[in-house]
Each structure stands twice: as structure tokens, then as C-alpha cells.
């Protein structure tokens, strides 16, 4: 109850005209930054930081918090409308968002599903943050290298749910993704790895241009074939907010995955170094295990809801270690921390006691940003879906240029553009040959985390495997891992020997 009281106090701090305007401004900018591929929340927050020095710290952090948070909303727009993820957590949104907008011709509903789920996921994350923030941060701390290794191994098996009907092809790209991610500086040994003497490869393959190419530019190349087809105005009637509204049935489908992902995402966000992208991946992968009205990947509402809710919840969850302990869960968090120090605050375990009005003000502002962003989103959706009625002919050069400037902006150099161009060509060839690229992108994110945690665990245990079995949390995940691997095999064997009835699906 204490926390609720503190939160109310937080609201009294935030609810001034100036702060609400700052929050509104931050939310608005965040949506734009999020929708532009290449500049994620990290760049957005970092570039805006100097602007905020003039404000008092509370107002400034409210604005930045709103920007960081609303960024997740914007990321889904370009993912759904153009099949280009605006930021990396939105990769999973493209899988169902784009088909729902184009094949099922329900763009407004797709956008609204994304935003409603973001809202639900975010709210769950914030409620958990409010009531158990410090406790949550302590749970995050319990996840050391050994525990993270076991957890990530479980997460890696979820790739199996994503590979689709051709496991050989899915696994092939998964391995390729792990190898590409292995290139560059190896932090643990301080040695460059697979750089082939190239000074650019020394820093590895940057993720964002890689994604823009694999998903976005590859899509442009594919569209070239359709550009002379008449776009028989796919969307006539639903250019208004009324035409974009969800039916009650849609909402019923959206709710369970959004709530599930809300809890899952918050938990992932709290873990050290995991972040919103991992949250979205896991949310989507988990949804594969549940019942879906339509097949995931064909434009199912459940698919959009599960990843969008998870990524917003993770963004909220990441504030728990940031505020309670001063530990940034992501690059963006680190920049926010840098900002706190510039304003003369000392982020750390004492922040809640020394500057309660600030810490609770920030949490309260997240709630407000969540609502404001939803309202802004509702207002602009009707305009956004007009993008789909732009003829493909004209869309191709526009999107090409956005890919170009977006990938340039992630590295501040042409290197990003080269990475984007090359991965675009590969992405097109892969997709055309029946290889889906989503497992590859997932492996690219998870494998480096898994590798570094595993190696750290082995340094601690002096090369002994025992560390994974001695620690209770790690052991629990290892058991889950074995069950996940054994379950299909046992079922196969049982079916073969007639113990279990074969599923009759003819």
C-alpha cells in the first residue's frame, strides 16, 4: 500500500502543465523516432539529451522516459505498413503485422491491435514495477552467468517453433546468424575474431543495418516485381478511425496473449542485458505453444499482440534495475543513467530514498506516457493507413532512401549502408529460396548473450560443468530444457509403439 501512496505522490509531481507538455512532446517524438528505421530509442534519447539540460531533472527525465517508452509504439508502424521494422523489437511484429495489413486488408485493425497490446503489456509491466520494483530488481540480480546461460538455452529452443515447416532450412540460417554475430571483437578475451584483417569487421556486423537489409530492403527488392500491378485500392472504407476499430471478437483474441506476454516481457526486461528485443522474441515464440484462431505468420491478431505486449512490458520492466539499483538493462538505459548524472542526481541503490519524488515521478510519468501515446496513436492511425494506398512504384524509391539514411544513421558511416545493401540482397535470395529469416535474426540477438554468459560461467567454475547443476535456478532451467528436448522424442516413441494414439488428422 505504501507503494501506491508513493505513486500517488509521484502523480502529483508529474501532473503539472509543464510536465504533461514535456511528456506529450516526448511521446510524440518517440513515435516518430520509433517509426524511422535505423534510429532506435538509443539514438533518440542520446540525441535529445543535450536539449533537456535546460529543464529541471524531473521534467527532463519525464520527457526522455516518454520518448523511450513511446518509441516501442512507433516501431510497429513501419513494421506493419511497410514490413520494415522501425526498431529491432519490431522484427517479430512484421511477421503477422504486415500480412494482416496487406493480405487480410485490415491495416487499421493491425495497427490498433499493436497499440492496444502495447498498452496492455506496458500497463502490466508498470503495475509490477510499482508494487515490486525493488524486489524485482533483486530477482534480476539472482541471474548470474550460469542462470542466464540455462535460461538462454531454453530460449534458443524456442527458435524451433519459429523455423516453420522446413526445419533444415530454418536451422541452416540459425547457424549462419550465430556465426555472423560471432564476428568482431571478443570482449572476454579482448581479441578480434573473424575480422579477416578488415578494420570495419573488427567491430562486428551492426545489428540494425543488418535487420533493415534482411527485412526491409529485401522487401523492396521483392516489391519490384509487383510494381506495375494496379493497386486496386485495398482500403476504401476504413480510412477513418471508425473503420479501424477492433471488433469485440478481435479484442477477445488479443487479450489473453497480451496479458501473458505482459508478465513474460516484464520478467525478461528485468534480466541483465536481455532487453526488449529478446522480450518480443520470447513473447512471440511462446504464443506458438498456445491456441491461435489463425496460423501465426499469416496475419494473426494473436501474433501481433504477443510480441507487442512483451516488448512494451520489457521496456517497463527494465526500469526496475535502473531505478532500484542504478543498473542499466540496455544501451538506452545507460544513456538515461548518463543523463541522471548530468543533472546532478546519483542513480544507484539510494535513489528511492534520496530522491523519492524523482523516482516515483518517473514511474508515474510512464503511466501517463502510456495513455498519451495511445491517444496520439488513435489519432494518427487513419492517416497512417493511407501509406498503403500509395502506388508501389512511388513507394519503392521512398523506402529505398529511408533504408539508406536509416542504416547510415546507425553507424554514422557508409559501413552501415554496405551492411544493409549486402544483407538486403541475401535476404531476398533466402526468402525466394524458401528460407525464412526470422530464426536467423533471433539467433543473432540471443547467441552472443548465450556465449558470453556461458564463458563467464566457466571462468567462475574453472572449466567445470557443475556450476549449471549446483545453482537451483540454473538447475531448474536445465531440467526444463531437457523436458523440452525429450518431450517430442518421447511422444514420437510412444506413438510409434502404439502406447499413444496417433493423431488422426486427415
Amino acid at each position, binding site marked *: 500500500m505504501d507503494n501506491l501512496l508513493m505513486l500517488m505522490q509521484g502523480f502529483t509531481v508529474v501532473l503539472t502543465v509543464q510536465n504533461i507538455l514535456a511528456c506529450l512532446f516526448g511521446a510524440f517524438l518517440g513515435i516518430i523516432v520509433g517509426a524511422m528505421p535505423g534510429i532506435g530509442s*538509443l*539514438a533518440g*534519447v*542520446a*540525441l535529445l*539529451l*543535450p536539449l533537456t539540460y535546460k529543464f529541471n531533472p524531473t521534467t527532463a527525465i519525464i520527457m526522455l522516459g516518454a520518448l523511450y517508452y513511446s518509441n516501442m509504439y512507433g516501431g510497429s508502424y513501419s513494421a506493419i505498413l511497410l514490413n520494415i521494422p522501425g526498431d529491432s523489437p519490431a522484427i517479430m511484429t512484421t511477421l503477422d503485422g504486415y500480412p494482416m495489413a496487406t493480405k487480410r486488408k485490415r491495416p487499421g485493425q493491425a495497427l490498433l491491435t499493436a497499440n492496444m497490446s502495447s498498452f496492455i503489456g506496458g500497463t502490466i509491466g508498470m503495475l509490477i514495477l510499482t508494487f515490486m520494483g525493488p524486489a524485482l530488481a533483486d530477482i534480476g*540480480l*539472482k*541471474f*548470474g*552467468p*550460469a542462470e542466464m546461460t540455462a535460461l538462454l538455452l531454453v530460449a534458443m529452443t524456442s527458435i524451433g517453433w519459429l523455423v516453420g515447416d522446413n526445419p533444415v532450412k530454418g536451422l541452416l540460417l540459425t547457424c549462419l546468424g550465430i556465426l555472423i554475430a560471432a564476428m*568482431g*571483437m571478443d*570482449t*572476454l*578475451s*579482448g581479441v*578480434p575474431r573473424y575480422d579477416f584483417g578488415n*578494420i*570495419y*569487421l*573488427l*567491430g562486428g556486423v551492426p545489428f540494425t543495418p543488418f535487420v533493415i537489409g534482411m527485412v526491409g530492403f529485401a522487401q523492396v527488392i521483392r516489391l519490384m516485381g509487383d510494381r506495375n500491378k494496379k493497386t486496386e485500392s485495398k482500403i476504401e472504407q476504413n480510412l477513418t478511425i471508425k473503420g479501424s476499430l477492433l471488433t469485440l471478437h478481435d479484442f477477445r483474441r488479443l487479450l489473453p496473449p497480451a496479458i501473458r506476454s505482459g508478465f513474460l516481457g516484464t520478467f525478461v526486461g528485468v534480466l*541483465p*542485458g536481455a532487453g526488449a528485443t529478446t522480450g518480443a522474441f520470447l513473447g512471440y515464440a511462446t504464443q506458438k505453444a498456445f491456441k491461435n484462431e489463425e496460423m501465426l505468420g499469416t496475419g494473426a491478431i494473436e501474433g501481433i499482440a504477443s510480441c507487442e505486449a512483451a516488448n512494451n512490458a520489457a521496456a517497463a520492466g527494465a526500469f526496475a*534495475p535502473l531505478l532500484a*539499483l*542504478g*543498473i*542499466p538493462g540496455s*544501451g538506452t538505459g*545507460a*544513456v538515461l*543513467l*548518463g*543523463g541522471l*548524472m*548530468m543533472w*546532478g542526481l*546519483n*542513480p*544507484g*541503490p*539510494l535513489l528511492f530514498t534520496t530522491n523519492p519524488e524523482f523516482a516515483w515521478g518517473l514511474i508515474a510519468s510512464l503511466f501517463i506516457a502510456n495513455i498519451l501515446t495511445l491517444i496520439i496513436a488513435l489519432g494518427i492511425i487513419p492517416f497512417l493507413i493511407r501509406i498503403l494506398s500509395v502506388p508501389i512504384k512511388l513507394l519503392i524509391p521512398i523506402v529505398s532512401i529511408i533504408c539508406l539514411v536509416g542504416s547510415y544513421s546507425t*553507424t*554514422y*558511416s557508409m*559501413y552501415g549502408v554496405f551492411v544493409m545493401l549486402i544483407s538486403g540482397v541475401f535476404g531476398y535470395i533466402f526468402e525466394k529460396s524458401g528460407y525464412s529469416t526470422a530464426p536467423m535474426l533471433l539467433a543473432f540477438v540471443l547467441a552472443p548473450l548465450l556465449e558470453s554468459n556461458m564463458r*563467464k560461467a566457466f*571462468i*567462475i567454475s*574453472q572449466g567445470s560443468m557443475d556450476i549449471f547443476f549446483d545453482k537451483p535456478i540454473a538447475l531448474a532451467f536445465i531440467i526444463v530444457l531437457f523436458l523440452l528436448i525429450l518431450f517430442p522424442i518421447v511422444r514420437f516413441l510412444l506413438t510409434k509403439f502404439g502406447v499413444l494414439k496417433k493423431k488422426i488428422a486427415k
Partner: protein
Amino acid sequence: MKKFATVLLLISLSISLFAQGGAEAQGGAFSPSRDIEWTVTSSPGGGSDIYTRMISDLASKMDLVEKNFLINYKTDGGGEVGRLTVSRTKGDLANHSLLTFNSGDLMPMLKNTDNRIENFTPIAVMAVDKQLLYIGEYSQYTSFAEVLKAIEGGKSVVIAGSKGDDIATYEALIEELGINENQLSFITNDSTSAAITSILGGHVDLCMSKPAAASQYVLAGKLKPILALSQTRFAGNLSEAPTLSEVGNYKNVEVPVWRGIVGPKDMSPEAAAYYSAMAKSVSDSEAWKNDYILKNGLLSEFKGAEEAAAFMAAFQATYLKKIGK
């Protein structure tokens, strides 16, 4: 025709947007004739960025320079691309290019590339930082003497730290102690905050950090300093940590972590002197001492162009010898 004129207008507009040029610098005493391009080889928001912005903001506020600073972030190849580009800058631009350069930048550059400090014009060293070893709430040891005893008894102790500087300090430490890297092993994290995370969770025994990153945790009683990697003890709440010579029959271990500024090799001596004087004025200001040095627990140790050149060259020679290059 009207449309064509519009195109021309658009083109000229967009060109004027990014073309900022100026007249050539005149001889004699140097003063910048165009905006100064300042390269930072790490991401916006990090320690190097804050350091760079602090200096450039103060230099502008104190009216030390009339032109603007354009801060470029060049993170490709772990920063090596940015460093190489600056070192090769020629002509008038060379007199208007600066690079934030720290010991943590110099070491990987020497280790992984053929770029050397001779390819730059050192301008200043602004501040020096040092590390300490800390224990956490869950640590099995309460002092560094206990750690040493445990190692003697055949136990293995794990330190978590960050990249670059921390590794150099760790290596100097085990060399002085005469033990190998399995007896006292080191986990390289991407950042100091990741290292602190792992000790707060009780996953490692010790943690290496500079005073600034750990100060809040020391205040909250979550971390306790047990060894000062310095010639003398630290001040304030870090004063209880002894130096290595107080713990046993060893020499003190200190690998100073410095933050500096360099320019391209082609920068004229006049320009170097100009920027060096600018850095000196910043370093002498109250704002710098209070808002940067004091807040980050650093030591203000200003070295001008010539002194910095000798210092960086010596640092390079020692490091190259150590890694056998």
C-alpha cells in the same frame, strides 16, 4: 520551366544546408576559421561523450572559441575507423579536427591495429582516474589479505571488471603478486555497471571499478573497497582501502587511466598550441573542477601539448613492450 526552377531551388537549398565553409586560416597566431569537428569513438551518452561535451560546452560558454564544435560519433570497428580517419586528416581540416583519446582507446589500438600515437598530435591530458577492488554483501572475504591467503591455500578467486584499462590494471596486479591468471581470474564485462551487477548478485568474489561508478553502492553499503590500486590511499569513504604495499610485502600497483585530447598528425604547431591553451583554460575553471572532476571522483592532472606527447609516447612504449609487439 517553373518546375525546373523549383528543382534548382530545392537543390541549392539542400546544398546550403550542409555546406559550411570558411576562409583559409591566416598565418601567425592560429584561430579557427571554421567549425571544429570533434570525433568521439564511442556511442553518444557514454563516459567519453560526457567528457567531450563537458569540455566543448565549457569552451563555448567561456567564449574561448568563436566557432562551433561539431561532435561526430564514429564507432565503426570498435572506434578504430574513427581514429584512423582523424590520424589521416590533412590540410586545413586537420587544424579543425579533434579526437577524444583515452588510455582505454590507445591500448586496443596498439594491440589490434598498426596505428600509433606518432600519427597524432597530442594536445592535452585532462584528467587521471584509478581503480579499486571491492567486495560485495555476499563475498566470502572481508579483506584483500584474506583473498591472498585463500589463493595461497589453493583457492581460485574471480574478479569482475570492465574492458581496456581494467584489464591492464589486473595484469599489473597479478604480475606484482606473482600468481597466474587461474588463481586470480578476471571476467571482462562490457561495462563497469555489468561487473557491479554480477557482484551485487554474489556471482563473483571481487569487483574492479573506478571510484565514480561504485560510489553510490559504497554509500548504500552494498560494496566495500578493500584494495586501492594506487600509490596512495583514496580520500573520503574510500580511505579505508589500503594500498598493496600496506597489505603485504609488495610494491603498489597503479596503472593510471587518463583522458586526453589529440589532433591529426598534420595539425600545425600553432593550432595545437591554440587548442592546448583552450583545454588549459577549461581545466582551470571552477565548473570543470566541480561538475566533472569532483563529481566523477577523478584527479585533475593537466598536461599541455608537449608534456602530453611525452606522456602518451611513454605509455605506448611500456604497453607495446608488455604485449610483446
